[in-house]
């Protein structure tokens, strides 16, 4: 295609950008410079101070305003003659349905979470609009192209669990156990045992930009005559009790969220036990990484989920051992998943916090597995990725599909390459999202409830927001806020029934149809009963979408 028809294709194009953050700012600028005239942009977020180091369209004075709207205004200042339509909204909102997506020639993702990426992927498939998808982590990044019937879809290959979380989710509004882990590891552990000069978000609360934060730092200084148990209790009551009380004062935060419960040590453990904690038997191991609070407390099974009281004892004991046995490390420790005591401390702290926020507790074994790293983004990677997105978008608009590439941005060169293009993969023939292949779910139908199925499989694993579940023509469940009261009550009754006890019993050999009308995604799930599996509540764990098989337990 010659350059005139390329220019023409760009001018005529109507593009939708999802996300006006790190990649989004760079992308909007690059689209504008490349001659795009009609750009729509969706982002639900408002601007925060920590965005300003890379989201270059935003200034201090914009903090608190809509990213999509400010991005538009700022770009129009240097390119006044183009049309940019901002939406300060969630891409999952019903207004952004298949018909909305059909209006665009290409969709460009600059998102930061798996959930929204999956949602956009499904709408792109349903609307048959090509998708250019992207992501960055530190110096790494990638751009991929997804065209129905030509390449794989975003969900053809199973995705690793996302590793980064918005800071306010960690500091103020955790909703998953992993948020508690990140808090315990990157904030509390770092504050207590790491470099004190490192900036730490431990006491940053959303909606509270003031510096009321600083004075509390002293709480972490241990007085000369303060014995470890006293110190531990002070820390405990401060971070799990007092801080939660402070957070609760901000009513706005809890309007649509479950309110957390402040936890004070005195409410959890009897006075006598607090003082005796860990002194019952002497830990005679040498000072090394195998020093263990669990073993000195007699908690032997790392696969077991300990109670709040047990976790509280573990917290105190791990803290005591750090102070008494590894005092020289304090101030320079960094979290290491092979450091037993560190894992124990983080597990205990995460579980106490989880308990406060009504999140299910986890075993040390699971907590260790979940502990991952927060990796943050830098401007340069986002700029590079934005350039690559536009190059792919233009190829899509020119219908130059055979030259579309997935590109990886690497930190260390591979075959001399820092930017490595790869031919797009073919669609996975058994992908439950872009093919019709039914899924197989192995489940104990006598112990698993409909709620387990809806929450853990349909919502969590399949990423549906408002599912409709049918067995043959019989409607078993329907999600959504707009249901009639009596119907909703009826579904609520079913939720706590095990699968075999439903009005239309789900047994081995049953086939369920699960649909999300907004995503226009429908898939069939064949049920296979497995009675040997443990109780269902915690055991839906692996889901291998690539082999179209949802498995339960199996460890």
């Amino acid at each position, binding site marked *: 295609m010659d350059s005139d028809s390329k220019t023409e294709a760009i001018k005529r194009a109507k593009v939708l950008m999802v996300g006006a953050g790190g990649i989004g700012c760079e992308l909007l600028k690059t689209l504008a410079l490349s001659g795009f005239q009609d750009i729509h942009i969706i982002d639900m977020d408002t601007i925060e101070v920590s965005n300003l180091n890379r989201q270059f369209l935003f200034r201090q004075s914009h903090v608190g305003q809509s990213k999509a709207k400010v991005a538009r205004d700022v770009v129009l200042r240097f390119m006044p003659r183009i049309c940019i339509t901002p939406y300060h909204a969630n891409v999952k909102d019903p207004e952004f349905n298949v018909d909305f997506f059909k209006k665009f020639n290409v969709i460009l993702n600059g998102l930061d979470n798996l959930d929204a990426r999956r949602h956009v992927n499904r709408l792109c498939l349903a609307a048959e609009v090509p998708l250019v998808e992207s992501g960055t982590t530190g110096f790494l990044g990638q751009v991929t192209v997804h065209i129905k019937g030509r390449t794989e879809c975003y969900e053809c290959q199973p995705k690793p669990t996302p590793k980064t979380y918005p800071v306010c989710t960690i500091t103020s509004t955790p909703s998953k156990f992993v948020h508690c882990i990140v808090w315990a590891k990157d904030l509390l552990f770092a504050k207590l045992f790491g470099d004190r000069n490192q900036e730490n978000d431990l006491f940053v609360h959303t909606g509270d930009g003031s510096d009321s934060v600083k004075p509390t730092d002293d709480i972490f200084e241990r007085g000369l005559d303060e014995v470890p148990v006293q110190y531990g209790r002070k820390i405990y009551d401060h971070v799990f009790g007092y801080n939660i009380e402070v957070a609760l004062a901000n009513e706005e935060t809890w309007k649509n969220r479950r309110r957390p419960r402040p936890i004070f040590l005195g409410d959890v453990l009897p006075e006598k036990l607090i003082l005796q904690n860990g002194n019952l038997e002497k830990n005679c191991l040498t000072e090394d990484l195998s020093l263990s609070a669990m073993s000195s407390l007699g908690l032997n099974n790392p696969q077991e989920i300990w109670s709040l009281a047990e976790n509280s004892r573990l917290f105190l004991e791990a803290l005591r051992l750090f102070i008494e046995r590894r005092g020289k490390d304090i101030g320079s420790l960094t979290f290491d998943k092979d450091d037993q005591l560190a894992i124990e401390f983080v597990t205990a702290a995460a579980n106490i916090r989880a308990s406060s926020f009504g999140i299910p507790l986890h075993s040390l074994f699971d907590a260790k597995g979940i502990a991952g790293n927060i990796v*943050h983004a830098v401007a340069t990677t986002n700029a590079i990725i934005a350039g690559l997105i536009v190059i792919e978008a233009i190829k899509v608009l020119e219908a130059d599909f055979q030259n579309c590439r997935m590109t990886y941005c690497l930190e260390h060169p591979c075959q001399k390459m820092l930017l490595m293009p790869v031919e797009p993969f073919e669609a996975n023939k058994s992908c439950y999202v872009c093919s019709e292949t039914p899924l197989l779910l192995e489940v104990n139908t006598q112990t698993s409830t409909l709620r387990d199925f809806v929450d853990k499989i349909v919502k969590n694993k399949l990423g549906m927001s408002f599912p409709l579940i049918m067995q043959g023509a019989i409607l078993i469940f329907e999600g959504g806020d707009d249901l009639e009261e009596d119907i909703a009550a009826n579904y609520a009754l079913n939720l706590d029934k095990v699968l075999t006890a439903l009005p239309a019993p789900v047994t081995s050999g049953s086939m369920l149809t699960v649909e999300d009308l907004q995503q226009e995604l429908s898939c069939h799930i064949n049920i296979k009963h497995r009675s040997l599996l443990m109780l269902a509540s915690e055991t839906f764990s692996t889901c291998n979408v690539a082999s179209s098989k949802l498995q339960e337990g199996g460890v």
Partner: protein
Amino acid sequence: MDGEELTAQQTALYDRQIRVWGVDAQKRLSKAQILVSGLNGTSVEFCKNIVLAGVGSLTLMDDRLVTEDALQANFLIPRDETVYSGRSLSELCCESLRDFNPMVRVLAEKGDLAQCEMEFLDKFDVVVVTGCSLKTKIEINEKCRKRAKRIAFYAIECRDSCGEIFVDLQNYTYAQKKSDGTAECHLSYPSLEDAILIPWRNLPRKVSKLYFAMRVIEKFELSEGRNPGELSNFDLPAVLKQRKELCDAQSLNESHVPETLLERILVAGPMLYPPVCPILGGILGQEVIKAISGKGDPLKNFFYFDAADGKGVIEDISNPSSI
């Protein structure tokens, strides 16, 4: 690293990147003085990146008045003649860049870097040049090498959808990350003049075709007294002649410098393919951050990107015996 601590304002703003490269790197960045000579789509991308990263100061040199052409791929200047008319590129870019990060001093310096006193360069840790002739680049590079302090030199050029970055860190030592801790690593860079003098038959196998194409175009512009990018497809016969002469002299088969590639560069003339600018400017930004912070393996010593194949390739064109 010793020295003052970062301010609370700095730590709040740079929080996310400190988590990537650490406090020490951030402190070094905040003391670095950068000079950029030549403002175009690629160099303004670089400027944006390092202003956001929080360098100490950025000095811009480009006295050209703003024209329609100079605005191309430049997001720092509003498309409004009443704003830009009669004003220089450095002045206008400086104003916009200051806005990006109030903690970075951004200055516009009048004059031509090629004519500057040698001492002027001592103010800087990093010098980036673009949009000038090969001769000028070589001169500035040599001046940087003659100063007592080590000044990192970068040249960046974009043609159509292709780009080239040249890096000269002279003798550079850094802590290389190994699986078992860090090891001190020394790299020795040739000057631009020495690098391009290396006989083509001594170059690494399968070196990027862009390396040869850039040399042919450069030589053509120099011999014709053209400004960079002052080209059109009418120049093709003369450029092909230039290619033949160079290839014959270097005993290289002309197929290593494809006519289609040369033609593409000629047809584009001064026009850049805009999405290439953030890619080149991003890579250059990362390299400068690495060189200042001493963290990460720096690029040695050429980088090429071509949107046509999408590859971003590092070429080491340094002949230890010839330096």
